[in-house]
């Protein structure tokens, strides 16, 4: 299975060097890849249909427990077949739809990458591996949404989509890590056996929240749904493939996968039912107000995703059967509707419902495809959509006495919206009179109208023979999702019962809504008045506020004033040091250890302090420099007192040279420090900060003085200076022998600074010169 997944990835890599051969109509041959994969998965139908699960495991990162573990069970087979099957049609369709596009090869590259990633998601048996592929789907979606990269709107939509799904992804990751931590494994196979531990853990609600964030953002649930309509900026094949049939269902897939692990608790059920319910009603209503064909379809997709979330939340056997069936039904008719929309857009140049009518006269096969898809979406008997809808009602009716009525009402009303939306997208553009400007519309090539037609017909074929799907796919899928054994048959006809009544009501009401709800620009305008109350607006506003805060914060912290940086560093150090000093308690001084003061030492220190005062307070640059040099010489004298002749000579010469250097440089600087620096409060503040720093250092020094010193190493030096290092001046021996390495690189430092000074003075690049 690893190879199966990697095939797409390899193809996409090969397209980088070989892309130029696939920019023409030849690209249609690339559809052999998904077709082959479809055949591969189809060949497993009977085996998996019998309730078997195929496992495969390869080592990858065992230290983290992330291995290339894959499983092929009913659920993954269902999705794999959708991904590769619809993929094949999309690949064929796109070769014609984007014919002559200069980046057609890149498009296929991303599409292959996406297909790989999506297969990876559904086949993974390890949740972190699943996450890996999950992120890859987000990334490939980003590239596909932004495929028309010169359009600003495309780029913005791509960024929004990546932002929303990316953020959800990080939450999901955190959730998965917590699951792994609680259960001690990342393998789904093993997780299923530790359900009880996870559900009873105190962090279970947090885990649930994090996983839901991932699923909801990906599957466009309210209030994160807003990226999906934006994602319709992608070329239509992408909308059909990623944003209705497969990728957005990854969230649903995730919920389904986690049903046996996390599901079944009240938290799980109610959250999903509420969120799913809100999503389907909200999006169902919205879809009726749209006049852009893709807009209608986007919102109806969101509504369907809501329905699916709702069903998984319901979690009964009936609900799970309904969800599995509905996933297939929706994928078939929605992909078909998208493709039809794409053809209309491609041939007429518009997707505005208000401008489209009568197209059946020029695009007859497309009209058939659209009608079949619309009818399936409406749930007409004999269509697969009918079976899906039936099962939904069955599930809601079986939900328990208190809930059944409410849930059924919600489901029916959402479905009414879906029926109307399906008619609007699949039938409306084709009926009525053909406007004059559309008379010249030509039939496209077969590669472009066959795929939707195939999907439309398939909807009715499967609808007439539901047993195939039911036995081979749905039943193993539900087997995976629910714990106890499930026995059921998908049937066309359930007899005259409540469910049939509800179905009929839905279709009739949907048709009525369709007839009374004429698409008009005024409605879109009406809807725009509520823009300020949508989640999208709310997120935009918060993001804007977040950016403004970031801007303010960054400018506040990094304000350009060196002294404010330095004072923060010093104050931070002071806080930590004072904390430790206070923790250390009072300081005791052992006076007996100290050396007595002699007069000349005292005088020297006094001179030093005087020079220090002068340096700090003077306003003349020269005086300040002179003050510093006096300090240097006084220190030099101190070294003489305390038996450091080498230091004394070095300090003396270095001090002299520094002064000479300063004088050279100050030569052409004004002699007074004219910068206004006299703000009293600042001086007091700096004085306090500096003073406390000095006090802290003094206290630290006193504390350290109380610690008895070890002299092992310096005694070693004294002992062996002559016998081993052949010298009598130990300081020099230390410098050139014991610690000669320090000296070696110290002269390197000196050399670098000389080179630096040289280049600093001599090299003056103009701004026009290159880096």
């Amino acid at each position, binding site marked *: 299975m690893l190879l199966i997944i990697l095939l797409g990835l390899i193809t996409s890599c090969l397209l980088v060097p070989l892309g130029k051969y696939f920019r023409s109509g030849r690209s249609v041959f690339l559809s052999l890849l998904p077709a082959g994969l479809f055949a591969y998965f189809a060949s497993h139908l009977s085996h998996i249909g019998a309730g078997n699960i195929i496992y495969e495991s390869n080592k990858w*990162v065992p230290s983290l427990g992330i291995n290339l573990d894959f499983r092929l069970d009913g659920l993954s087979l269902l999705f794999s077949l959708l991904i590769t099957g619809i993929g094949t049609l999309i690949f064929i369709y796109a070769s014609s739809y984007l014919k002559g596009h200069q980046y057609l090869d890149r498009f296929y590259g991303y599409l292959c990458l996406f297909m790989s990633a999506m297969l990876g998601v559904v086949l993974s048996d390890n949740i972190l591996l699943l996450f890996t592929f999950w992120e890859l789907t987000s990334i490939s979606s980003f590239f596909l949404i932004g495929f028309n990269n010169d359009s600003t709107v495309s780029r913005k939509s791509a960024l929004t989509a990546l932002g929303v799904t990316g953020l959800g992804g990080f939450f999901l990751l955190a959730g998965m890590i917590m699951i792994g931590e609680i259960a001690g494994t990342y393998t789904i196979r093993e997780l299923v056996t530790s359900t009880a531990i996870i559900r009873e853990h105190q962090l279970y609600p947090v885990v649930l929240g994090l996983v839901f964030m991932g699923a909801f953002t990906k599957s466009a649930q309210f209030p994160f749904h807003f990226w999906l309509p934006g994602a319709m900026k992608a070329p239509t094949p992408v909308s059909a493939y990623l944003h209705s049939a497969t990728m957005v269902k990854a969230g649903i897939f995730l919920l389904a996968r986690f049903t046996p692990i996390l599901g079944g608790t009240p938290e799980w059920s109610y959250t999903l039912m509420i969120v799913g319910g809100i999503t389907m009603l909200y999006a169902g209503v919205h879809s009726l107000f749209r006049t852009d064909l893709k807009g209608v379809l986007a919102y109806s997709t969101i509504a369907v995703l809501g329905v699916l979330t709702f069903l998984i939340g319901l979690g009964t056997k009936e609900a799970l059967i309904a969800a599995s069936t509905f996933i297939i039904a929706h994928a078939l008719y929605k992909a078909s509707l998208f493709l039809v929309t794409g053809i209309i857009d491609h041939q007429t140049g518009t997707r505005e419902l208000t401008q489209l009518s009568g197209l059946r006269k020029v695009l007859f096969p497309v009209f058939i495809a659209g009608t079949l898809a619309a009818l399936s979406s409406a749930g007409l008997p004999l269509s697969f959509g009918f079976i899906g809808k039936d099962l939904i009602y069955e599930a809601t009716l079986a939900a328990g006495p208190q809930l059944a009525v409410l849930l059924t009402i919600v489901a029916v009303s959402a479905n009414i919206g879906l029926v109307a939306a399906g008619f609007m997208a699949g039938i409306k553009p084709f009926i009525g009179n053909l406007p004059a400007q559309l008379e010249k519309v030509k039939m496209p090539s077969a590669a472009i109208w066959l795929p939707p037609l195939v999907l439309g017909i398939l909807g009715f074929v499967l609808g007439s023979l539901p047993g195939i799907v039911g036995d081979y796919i749905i039943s193993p899928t539900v087997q995976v999702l629910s714990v106890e054994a499930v026995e059921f048959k998908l049937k066309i006809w359930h007899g005259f019962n409540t469910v049939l009544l509800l179905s009929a009501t839905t279709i009739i009401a949907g048709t009525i809504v369709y007839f009374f709800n004429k698409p008009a620009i005024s409605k879109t305008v009406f809807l725009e008045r509520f823009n300020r109350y949508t989640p999208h607006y709310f997120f935009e506003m918060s993001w804007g506020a977040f950016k403004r805060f970031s801007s303010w914060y960054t400018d506040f912290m990094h304000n350009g004033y060196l002294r404010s940086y330095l004072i923060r560093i010093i104050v931070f150090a002071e806080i930590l*040091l004072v904390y430790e000093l206070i923790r*250390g308690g009072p300081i005791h001084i052992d006076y007996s250890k100290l050396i007595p003061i002699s007069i000349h030492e005292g005088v020297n220190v006094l001179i030093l302090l005087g020079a220090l005062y002068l340096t700090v307070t003077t306003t003349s640059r020269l005086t300040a420099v002179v003050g510093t040099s006096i300090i240097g010489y006084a220190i030099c004298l101190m070294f003489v007192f305390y038996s450091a002749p080498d230091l004394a000579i070095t300090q003396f010469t270095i001090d002299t040279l520094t002064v000479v250097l300063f004088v050279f440089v100050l030569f052409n600087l004004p002699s007074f420090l004219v910068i206004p620096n006299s703000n009293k409060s600042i001086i007091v503040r700096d004085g306090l900060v500096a003073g406390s720093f000095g006090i802290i250092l003094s206290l630290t020094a006193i504390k350290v003085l*109380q610690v008895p010193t070890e002299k092992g190493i310096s005694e070693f030096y004294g002992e062996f200076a002559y016998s081993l290092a052949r010298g009598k001046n130990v300081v020099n021996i230390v410098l050139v022998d014991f610690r000669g390495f320090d000296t070696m690189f110290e002269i390197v*430092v000196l050399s670098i600074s000389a080179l630096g000074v040289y280049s600093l003075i001599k090299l003056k690049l103009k701004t026009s010169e290159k880096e």
Partner: protein
Amino acid sequence: MIDNQIIATVLVHLFTALIQLVLPRKTVEQMILSIAGCLIGFLLSVNLFIKILDGGILTMNAANWEAPFGIVFVADLFSVTMVLLTSVAALAVSIFSAVGVGRARMLYGYFPIFHFLIMGLNGAFLTGDIFNLYVWFEVVIISSFVLLTLGGRKAQLEGAVKYMAMNILASTFFLTGIGILYGITGTLNMADLALKIPLIEDQNIVNLTAIFFLIGFGIKSAVFPLYFWLPSSYHTPPSAVAAVFGGLLTKLGLYALFRFFTLLFVPNEFLKIVFLTIGVTTILTGAFGALIKTNIRRMLSYLIVCHIGFVIGGLGLYNKMALVGAVFYMIHDIMVKTNLFLIAGLIRQLRGTMNMGKLGGIYAEYPKISLLIAVVLFSLVGIPPLSGFWPKLFLLESALFNHSYFYAASIILGSFITLFVIAKLWSEVFWKDASLDEMVVDNFKALKPGRKTLMVLPIAILACASLFIGLNAEFIIQVTDRIANEMIDTTPYTRAVLGK
């Protein structure tokens, strides 16, 4: 044990620089020498790395004085890994410099100083003596001053003044710390210190000393609230220089922090809280800054800050898993950040600016280079299975396991903002049409094919390194796992150095 091989990775750069100093006007020869030197350095460090990986810790007593009396060089897995990464980065940058740095700068000692800088880094990673470490730090600091100011543009000088002031302050803290440590233990050898520090009666002084090092190295590693020098200066020098800075300089500070706070001072509860707080605030500060900057290099500077927070937080958690994550993150970060600054240089070569508003159209014009860059960008973001993902996994796991939810949340926020700004960068720089009102200056087209290769090759080398790290995560994890073990149990280190 006499093993001069340890120091060979340092000496090769010293002698490369010295030969280049003798040939001051011969820029072509310098260029070739530089690449050759880096290549030899790379081979030596690979050899050393394999040796340490297969065997154990190696030491070298400089001047043949037994530790703790002389200066000792210690090659344990941590230091050798850092040396290896440095040499990879150095190789890439030296190749890039051949085209990316103008001849004027080469005439004034660009290459020798670059090699001194690399030498300083390697020396700092390998030394086992705190004062010697100070000397290496100074080598690094002074070379970076010179490289930062080389060219003397206004922005460069402005950045350099701030960089200088704060880095010298860092050295002051560091040196003060050394003075105190010598005062209380009478030794400068790290292994010896590791044995003597726990025996000191008044541990309060030890904690006090630790803070001096914390501040000193904290400034070097650009953590909140000590990071200011980084965004003030990293956008100013040539991109080749910025690449070394961005990839390696802050990592030196981090290396020192990890070395000191695992070997000498094991963080107590207070220090753990300090590190964690620093980690969280650093991540946030970097993320906020990166979000609003529109100049590529300014944005990258803030991203460096943000990601240093990840690493510091790992030190704050101070358990094996977190340390593995932190070290892994450093490994990943060195490769990617170096590369990103080189990429910024390439973009500037392609378009003559680094302002995202004025950039565009690279994807249409140079699709293959764009894809190469995309790999690097998404490695930085940590899209699985690329290199940034794994360490984040460790850190997140450790954070959640230890109930450090603030840290975990900030990792998520930091990662998200990284994702967002990188996607924005891609969309602005690569996707957007080249703006028409601006005259696009493409200095890249005019280059000869060989010179074009010299610019793209280093980026490809580093991208391959990132890919290797990402796809071969198991190997890196095994290495970092051993490093983390060495950090937690320091007896092998002290035994190797002191022989007891």
